[in-house]
């Protein structure tokens, strides 16, 4: 789960990492008030869960409260890669002397948290990695032992020479590691970490991604979820305990298992269609889940056909069939629904669905091609 910059900065501040003074605003007038209170030139920063907001014009300087109101008015309501900006962070503009990059990520290969530092701050770190990989230092940390002060110091020494700056940076890295570990983050990042004209090291930006699997014990973070920043259908799906990602296509997909759901989407694309979504109804799918899944898919106006692909192992095909019967009764779908139910109890399922006269398919490719055809699109082999 991603949280916003203003929330991440608050958490960093709670752990004693210096961040510029700032507050979040939802209206231009509020932005002006905050700018007035801060009393310095400010930056107005769009709070959206998407990269490249600076390039998209979502981060702007304002010299005074009047300018802040105007700038905030421009940014609020802005569409950044399909997300509408409803909040801006109004934060003191810092005088930047130098910029660095510090991040801690969960590294799958070493199975350890890895700290990355680079003197190339303030730019896209993946560009740095691609062009000048020698400018990024990486240190895997033993998860049992945690980060040792000398390790943080050595990393800090790669960024600065002045003892005061090294000391401050080492402290920030130690604190960032605590944030990473104690808040079950899969990423904590400061880009840029700057030195200002007063010789202070400040986190000018802040990013924290929280491990979804830890939200049950990170209740404070779970409460930071911004429902406005998410697709309404994705929220409904989460509440129904379905794994769902909305896409832009016309073929709605209901599948059991994440891998098979991805493979089904891939085949839709391969045969000339465009998947409307990823949807995994999970392992032991009860009939209610199928109804909820159908409801979510059918409420997407773009959907021209629904493809149901179930490989029954633990999931019983007759459970899914019963769910489909209920869903048809309740929802009366106006688009064609193609069904492939294979595996555990497939015969029982076929008997349940026999009277409904639905288009069925034996193989995965066949099912996908039929769905595309019924959606009125040309099928490619």
């Amino acid at each position, binding site marked *: 789960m991603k949280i916003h910059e203003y929330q991440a900065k608050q958490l960093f501040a709670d752990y004693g990492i210096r961040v510029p003074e700032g507050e979040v605003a939802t209206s231009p007038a509020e932005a002006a008030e905050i700018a007035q209170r801060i009393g310095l030139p400010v930056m107005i920063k769009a709070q959206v869960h998407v990269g*490249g907001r600076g390039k998209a014009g979502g981060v702007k300087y304002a010299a005074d409260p009047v300018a802040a109101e105007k700038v905030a008015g421009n940014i609020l309501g802005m569409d950044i890669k399909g997300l509408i900006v409803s909040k801006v962070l109004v934060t003191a503009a810092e005088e930047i002397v130098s910029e660095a990059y510090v991040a801690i990520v969960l590294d*799958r290969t070493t*199975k350890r948290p890895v700290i*990355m530092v680079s003197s190339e701050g303030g730019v896209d770190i993946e560009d740095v990695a691609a062009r000048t990989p020698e400018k990024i230092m990486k240190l895997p940390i033993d998860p049992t032992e945690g980060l040792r002060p000398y390790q943080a110091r050595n990393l800090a020494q790669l960024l600065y020479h002045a003892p005061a700056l090294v000391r401050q940076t080492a402290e920030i890295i130690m604190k960032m590691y605590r944030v990473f570990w104690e808040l079950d983050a*899969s990423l904590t*990042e400061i880009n840029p970490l700057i030195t200002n004209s007063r010789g202070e090291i400040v986190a000018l930006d802040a990013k924290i991604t929280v491990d979804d*699997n830890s939200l049950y014990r990170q209740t404070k973070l779970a409460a930071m979820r911004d429902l406005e920043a998410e697709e309404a259908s994705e929220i409904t799906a989460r509440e129904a305990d379905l794994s769902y990602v909305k*896409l832009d296509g016309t073929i709605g997909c209901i599948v059991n298992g994440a*891998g098979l759901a991805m493979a089904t989407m891939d085949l839709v694309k391969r045969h000339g269609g465009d998947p409307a979504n990823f949807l995994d109804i999970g392992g032991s799918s009860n009939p209610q889940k199928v109804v909820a899944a159908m409801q979510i898919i059918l409420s997407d106006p773009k959907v021209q056909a629904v493809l149901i692909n179930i490989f029954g192992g633990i999931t019983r095909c007759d459970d899914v069939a019963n769910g489909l019967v209920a869903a048809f009764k309740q929802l009366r779908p106006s688009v064609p629904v193609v069904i492939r139910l294979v595996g555990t109890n497939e015969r029982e399922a076929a008997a349940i669905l026999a009277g409904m006269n639905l288009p069925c398919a034996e193989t995965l490719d066949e099912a996908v091609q039929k769905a595309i055809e019924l959606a009125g699109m040309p099928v490619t082999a």
Partner: protein
Amino acid sequence: MSIFIDKLTRVLVQGITGREGSFHARQMKAFGTAVVGGVTPGKGGTEIDGIPVFDSVDEAVAKTGANTSVIYVPPPFAADAIYEAVDAGIALVVCITEGIPANDMMKACQHVKAAGARLIGPNCPGLITPGASKVGIMPGAIVKPGNVGVVSRSGTLTYEAIWALTTAGLGQSSCVGIGGDPIIGTSFVDCLEAFEQDPETEAVVLIGEIGGADEEAAAAYISNFMTKPVVGFIAGQAAPPGKRMGHAGAIILGSSGTAADKVAALAAAGVPVANSPTELPALIKKALARASRAPEAGCSKSRCGGGGSAESAVGAFSPHTSEHRVVPEMVVCPGLSLYKKDVVK
């Protein structure tokens, strides 16, 4: 022969009195697995379908001689269950549980490794050796004894592939689901190594998906060390970046972990990649036919000639890492996923 489990496997079910645990204990037993006991603290002395239940893994191991455990314990307690199994001397721990925090798994994996045990999963369907044993939740009805090894990060997609093999008359030596989480105990490479050494396995199906760099590591291993043919499938071509596709580990971060990269890495290692799971049997048959024409196993490496040098595979595997320029106490980790674009100033 087979990998990881066989007729000598003696299984303990941790969380046997739960809904999933009891259901699958019965399923495993029906398949022919030696399910020798179960563990649920506080339920010791009872029985599930004739399987004795114990209060601790320690006690269960002492009384049953179990060498393998399978975990169906809810996420908050699952990591502890892994420690308990390993500390009791269990050599193979299979963790089915989905939703364990990554921090817990980083520590647990380290503990498992230090103890010299093997962990499969978490968030996996387990493994199956047709005709001998199944540990986990894979449906027993779809497999058939044979000589194709199957290794996958997925559950139902694996069943789809196994079923395709079985209906095409291709049996399996062992099928292993390694799990869909970012931090897992056993990697593709571990399984490929085992299949390479298993005399009964003649070819391997590898089913990967978006996220991480395990497929790229597998490609590097295949091109350097595998003499047996491998065919692949990668799920998630149509997945958008930055979105978790069900599995916690199935996410494209920045430009790392894309399906296209994985397909390219496998192809460069000489691995034919199927467009659909239904194409896998034909690819396996072709690979087996070609392998049988090769005079010596070692010579089949020549199939990797052309673009398949180890270097190119390793290059694809860790594009952002350069090995020299290591500050003494620094370790440059291969395959480190860098996060990009969402980096905003």
